[in-house]
């Protein structure tokens, strides 16, 4: 008997042999399957946009596996089986960004530089100066050790030139706030901008600068203290703990995590974030940071969020970082997009031309061969530091 299968509009069908996945982004329901040749050809037919996610088939001619597949789709609320006359029109997910760069390039009357200022939303400035020499600043907010220092004046000039209403987050990471001249001038200026701003300071500096940092409480700024787990930390925090601060605890292994847990309990710290850092500790990352298949499937993603993964990098999008030498980066693991002397438009355009990070998506191996390609979070700094483009245990287990 002829029947009609229609897949629901918010549902994605992905086949990456030897696996297939149908995922309903409205309710998180899914079906993992083996794409036999019959099932694969059905999926291909459904994925042809001209068929509007419907297929008519003769139930009796399908093999039992395919029949089961069809039933599963309906049982898991991924689609509906009806008689052939049923008047159901479904719209398969088809991302259409009206002002996508490729479309602007294709239109002679338009320019790819249209509206680009609105894409730049977050700025991080590393002031530079003398501090511990690690590369953690390439993973997370962490002081950057350098001979060069970006002066208050330079930073203020740069921000003055940006003058963008779309900039909605500023991060200033101090390396050596004690010896940073005119810090107060910079702070006063940042406050006058009325843009949410976070000041990052390493915990070893708060003993000396406690009074200065305390004053920031009066300003409309957030202070975050970057902490590493070592023998001094508890004493320092005991002495300088301030409820208005937010603490970023960097951890490298389970032992540090256990110490941290106890310390948080002891000191009753309320506002904190735990941030794993990679430092030749792959096993720790594999066990605690890498995602598993169950993690991926447990995270319900909307159609919009899946589209975002397909079009841009949700970690890096809109962010620029300035290093103490004045070079500007969209991602610290790539070439710079210019310097603080360039116009903000040039910096953004360079990122669009080179695509270092803002539109860095999982379209390369091994992720492009995985059914979870678009369900996985966008590539992050960890991928660059670890030197592999997938932070998952799933794909490795498949090999």
């Amino acid at each position, binding site marked *: 008997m002829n029947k009609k299968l229609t897949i629901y509009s918010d549902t994605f069908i992905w086949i990456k042999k030897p696996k297939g996945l149908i995922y309903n982004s409205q309710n998180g329901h899914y079906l993992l399957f083996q794409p036999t040749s019959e099932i694969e050809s059905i999926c291909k037919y459904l994925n042809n946009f001209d068929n509007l996610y419907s297929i008519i088939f003769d139930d009796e001619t399908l093999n039992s596996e395919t029949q089961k597949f069809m039933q599963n789709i309906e049982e898991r609320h991924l689609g509906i089986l009806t008689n052939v006359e049923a008047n159901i*029109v479904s719209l398969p997910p*088809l991302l259409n*960004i*009206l002002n996508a760069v490729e479309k602007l390039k294709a239109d002679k009357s*338009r320019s790819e530089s249209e509206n680009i200022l*609105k*894409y730049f939303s977050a700025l991080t400035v590393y002031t530079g100066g003398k501090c511990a020499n690690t590369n953690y600043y390439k993973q997370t907010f962490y002081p950057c050790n350098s001979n060069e220092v970006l002066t208050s004046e330079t930073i203020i000039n740069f921000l003055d030139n940006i003058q963008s209403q779309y900039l909605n987050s500023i991060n200033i990471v101090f390396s050596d706030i004690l010896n940073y001249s005119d810090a107060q001038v910079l702070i006063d200026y940042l406050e006058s901008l009325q843009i949410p701003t976070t000041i990052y300071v390493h915990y070893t500096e708060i003993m000396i600068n406690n009074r200065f940092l305390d004053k920031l409480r009066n300003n409309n700024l957030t202070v975050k203290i970057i902490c590493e787990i070592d023998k001094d930390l508890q004493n320092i925090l005991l002495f300088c703990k301030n409820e208005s601060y937010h603490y970023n605890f960097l951890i490298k292994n389970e032992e540090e995590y256990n110490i941290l847990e106890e310390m948080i309990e002891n000191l009753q710290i309320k506002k904190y974030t735990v941030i794993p850092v990679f430092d030749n500790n792959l096993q720790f990352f594999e066990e605690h940071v890498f995602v598993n298949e169950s993690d991926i499937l447990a995270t319900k993603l909307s159609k919009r969020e899946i*589209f975002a993964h397909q079009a841009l990098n949700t970690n890096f999008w809109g962010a620029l970082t300035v290093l103490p030498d004045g070079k500007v980066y969209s991602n610290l693991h790539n070439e710079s997009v210019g310097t603080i002397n360039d116009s903000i438009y040039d910096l953004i355009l360079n990122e669009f031309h080179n695509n270092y990070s803002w539109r860095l998506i999982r379209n390369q191996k091994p992720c492009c061969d995985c059914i979870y390609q678009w369900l996985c979070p966008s590539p992050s700094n960890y991928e660059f530091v670890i030197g592999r483009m997938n932070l998952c245990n799933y794909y490795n287990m498949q090999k």
Partner: protein
Amino acid sequence: MEQAKLTINDVEDALINLKQVTLEVTDVCNLRCKYCGYGDLYFGYDKRQDKYLSFDKVKTLIDWLVYIWKFFKTVSYMPTTTIGFYGGEPLMNIDLIKQTVEYVENLKINRNFLFAMTTNAVLLDKYMDYIAEKKFNTLISLDGNSEGQSYRVNHSGRNSFDTVYRNVKLLQQEHPEYFAEHVNFNAVLHNRNSVESTYSFIKNEFGKTPTMSELNNSNIRSDKIEEFNRTYRNKSESLYQSENYEKLAEDIFIGEPQTENLLLFLHQYSGNTFRDYNDLFIDKNELRYRPTGTCTPFGKKIFLTVNGKIIQCERIDHNFAVGNVENGKVNLDFDYIVNRFNAYLDKLSKQCKVCYRKKSCTQCMYYIPDIDNNKPVCHGFMNKTDFENYKSYCMSHLAKKPYLYKKLMTEILVE
């Protein structure tokens, strides 16, 4: 969800990133088209008094805009602003057009300028070299063949077809590359032409697909309603009456009303269309929205009339002017603009709250005839049944032509 109101910031933003300045360079026209929006059939425009816009007024407006453009950061690196010339018949004031073009070309400002014009082509033979040299985007008003063009008559009542046809052919011959790239046609539908005849004529003669508009159905004088009804032709009906409907519908693609509606529907309701990359971070259900199809003032253009009035669009009643250019000054009170706009929104808010199309409204409130009354009635209002019908109208069209889905979503470039 609370409705978003217009703010001064919205208006300022629109001016900083202004896309088009339209200048009504004269109210004089060398034709007397029977259905003209400034003719006997309609009200709601300043009396035509054979006036010519002065360069002083144009310069005052442009200088004021340049000040804004220089002072504030634009969202685009090198924004493009089109200077559009409008009439009357704009070529009747070619001197002002030339002065304006020269002035704009010599502005020292980080901005691209394009020029555009809507013309009846009667004077095209005289000025075509200049128009082609400056690469004007030219929209020629032509209602098809001689019969179709017969409402477009000169002051003696004579059909303008022969003159217009000859001039357009001349332009095509003399400046073929310019013609191919920058010239388009608009035809007004009425009881002496049809979608099919107009399309065939312009396509065959000039290789172009014309846009086709119906007669404006707002602001019709009460004593002219019968005449209007006699003259009016509905685009969809005209299309369905075509001998080769399927082929024609395919050729004119989104010019076909149902396909155009489908495009809008897919953009608004498929959940697959996003204006730009930033929209991928925004849950639209959480967003405050402005329940109107009315453009943000100056969001698309600023229109300067021959009398120095500033209006947000040339298509709306001159009574909706929001300021003027007078005595070397631009008088625009942003508070007034915002308050008036929001006051109109407030008047409609009761209807908007229960309207099923409120989040994707296409109704311009300036087209609501009784908008200045206490309880204006919105013609765009949709109750649940209306909305379901609208949805089914679009989806049944798609079901008949499923190939349109991919085509509309991937091939249509919308600003």
